């Protein structure tokens, strides 16, 4: 009996819908005696209103909604309205060929489509009738409680294969219409999506720069700055933007210190510098770039020089998160310290000048 059912259903399906792709046909052949389950597989297999559907309305809608990216009236509003109108017309036209028992379901889906059209025209929120509401889940279209598909859930006795054929044909219209509305509404949210993506990328870019371009933070500094950010973040309800400053705390580093009064040969030498406490700040550009970075620290430098105290207090200023210049003084002896990056920059400038001088023909 089951075999007979399957054959009957498969034959009917083949006659009713010869245009489907291979996988779609396989679904109909295999599941034709259980129309509601078959329809769901066809729906998820993109055979109804999707890429595997060769029904003319699907092609028309896909062509129409290519340009739809927004719900803003006057921009893509006409295409959006036109697409939904055609889906509604498709349901009306198809309903004429269906039996009386199928009419309530077809009328219900048409009412929902027209309701969405009206809300969009009036610029009212769609709420449960938006994209997610038109998607199928388990036994229903999520946001369309009035679209009751119970009438499609039939089993066909061998003497009445028409029951399955009717359920299949009606269900195809309903599932296809829902899929086309979903796609149309989905595309009309493209602008909203792009704005969200741009905002997320901007925030990521800022955080990347906070860690990659701001002055390096050892973990104790990161913790201290984390506490400060955490306080701001709590005040902002957890949605604080990336920081525009950092404190510097017990930060060890290396610099080149020049002490004029040191013995000859040890005037310029590498020194350890501890930034005891400092502050560095910047502004964020619209593109999420760090600009105008500037900061200062109280420091202590350490170096081995005969006749001079090894520890020298001072002040250090920072530019562009990269270059630092410090003034140190102890026992009336002054010192100047350059960060390694600044020293490299100075050396490079000096080198470039020499090269230029050579090229100008006035060198050795």
């Amino acid at each position, binding site marked *: 009996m089951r075999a007979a059912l399957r054959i009957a259903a498969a034959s009917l399906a083949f006659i009713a819908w010869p245009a489907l792709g291979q996988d779609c046909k396989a679904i109909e052949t295999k599941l034709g005696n259980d129309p509601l*389950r078959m329809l769901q597989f066809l729906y*998820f297999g993109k055979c109804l209103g999707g890429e595997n559907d060769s029904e003319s309305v699907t092609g028309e809608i896909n062509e129409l909604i290519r340009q739809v990216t927004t719900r803003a009236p006057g921009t893509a509003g006409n295409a959006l309205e036109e697409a939904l109108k055609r889906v509604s017309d498709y349901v009306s036209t198809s309903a004429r060929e269906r039996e009386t028992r199928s009419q309530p379901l077809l009328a219900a889906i048409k009412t929902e489509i027209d309701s969405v059209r009206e809300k969009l025209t009036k610029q009212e929120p769609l709420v449960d009738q938006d994209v997610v509401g038109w998607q199928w889940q388990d036994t229903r279209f999520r946001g369309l409680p009035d679209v009751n598909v119970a009438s499609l859930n039939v089993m066909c006795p061998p003497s009445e294969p028409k029951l399955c054929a009717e359920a299949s044909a009606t269900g195809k219209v309903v599932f296809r219409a829902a899929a086309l509305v979903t796609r149309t509404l989905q595309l009309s949210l493209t602008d909203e999506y792009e704005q969200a*993506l741009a905002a997320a990328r901007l925030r990521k870019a800022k955080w990347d720069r906070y860690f990659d371009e701001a002055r390096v933070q050892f*973990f104790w500094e990161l*913790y201290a700055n984390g506490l400060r950010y955490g306080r701001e973040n709590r005040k902002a309800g957890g949605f604080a933007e990336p920081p525009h400053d950092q404190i510097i705390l017990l930060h060890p580093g*290396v610099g080149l210190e020049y002490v004029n009064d040191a013995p000859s040969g040890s005037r310029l030498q590498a020194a350890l510098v501890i930034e005891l406490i400092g502050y560095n700040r910047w502004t964020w550009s619209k593109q999420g770039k760090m600009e105008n970075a500037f900061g200062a620290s109280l420091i202590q430098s350490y170096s081995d020089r005969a006749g001079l105290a*090894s520890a020298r207090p001072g002040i250090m200023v920072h530019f562009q998160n990269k270059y630092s210049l410090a003034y140190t003084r102890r026992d009336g002896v002054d010192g100047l310290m350059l960060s390694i990056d600044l020293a490299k920059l100075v050396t490079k400038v000096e080198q470039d000048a020499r090269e230029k001088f050579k090229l100008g023909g006035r060198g050795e």
Partner: protein
Amino acid sequence: MPKHVVLFVHGVGDLQSAKEWQASYEELLPELYNRYDCSAFLPFDEHFELKPIFYNDEFDGLRKQWAKAAEDVLPLMTPGKFGGGVLTQLTEWAEGADKNTALRTHALDVVLYRFFPNVAAAVRASVHAQLLAGIKGADRWSVIAHSLGTSVVHDTLVWMFDPNAPKGRLPASGFRLEALAMIANVSRALESHGYEDEDGNELGARWDVYRSVVQPNAKPSKGVCASFLNVWHTWDPIPLPKQFKPASDWPDAATRASEGAFLDIEIGEFENVRKLTSVHDIDHYLRNPSVHIPLFRRLIPIGEGGRGLIPDAEMKKAVDKHRAANPLSEAKQWIDKLKDFRLSDEERGWEKILGMFLDYYANRQRK
């Protein structure tokens, strides 16, 4: 062709790249799906697109930065000269941050995410941007998160969907997920507290895992997903402290009455594990039919509870086969070992929790 995009979010570990993470599931999931009859009608590759979400580089970047900065300065911090004190010790620790040990690659990631709000925010920003980029053009989308990734995903979804989130928030009615699978869920243990507005009003609900928007909802314009799967293994010690176990009416009675909206899946089988941490591994979870069948059913919701996709009879056959192949009697040695790591499911002491994490991962190669 628009597909159902499934994004995988990793947990703690020494993953070096998104590609390495991708390798741990990209063959496994199709192989599991292809075991069932539905694959003949809805071929995996035509229906799904799997994408990795990778944030380990945020932690690795810091570790490398510290190591490099410390390496530059340590030669001048020789004990007995200028250093030798606490700062030298700290700097030496910073230099060692890049070494590949359980402390640095597992426990440190958790510490950085839980106790460094700036690091956590950077991780969320990275995951947020990746999720959004990942779902471009998708038909539907779902997330499978593992371990630390469950907390990261929870917090990121709050950013994406909370009505008070700043510019760039998405409406659930247009964009919410199909399924959110939280495997070895630690989101409650790692949730952050203490938020308030300018007037001092408490805003904790936004980030509280039971009260945030990250919940399933029967109404399509609410919640962030249609289905929420909370998956845990009886003997996996990691998701146990402050375990995610919502009340029977979470998030509301109507949603809980909707079959498949919230699935609390506890498994107990052991495969032929070769090391102690296998029980926490994502592939060990996914291979279990009691996990992957409900997952597939929620990814393609056909019929009541998704049983139209994989019928109960087919599920029973798969579960029985898995159990027969992995009898619990053979897992006794693993259970005895794993019992040592278990903390109370309401444990709040972070010293104990971190100690357990560390102890567990340090033993990962134990036979």
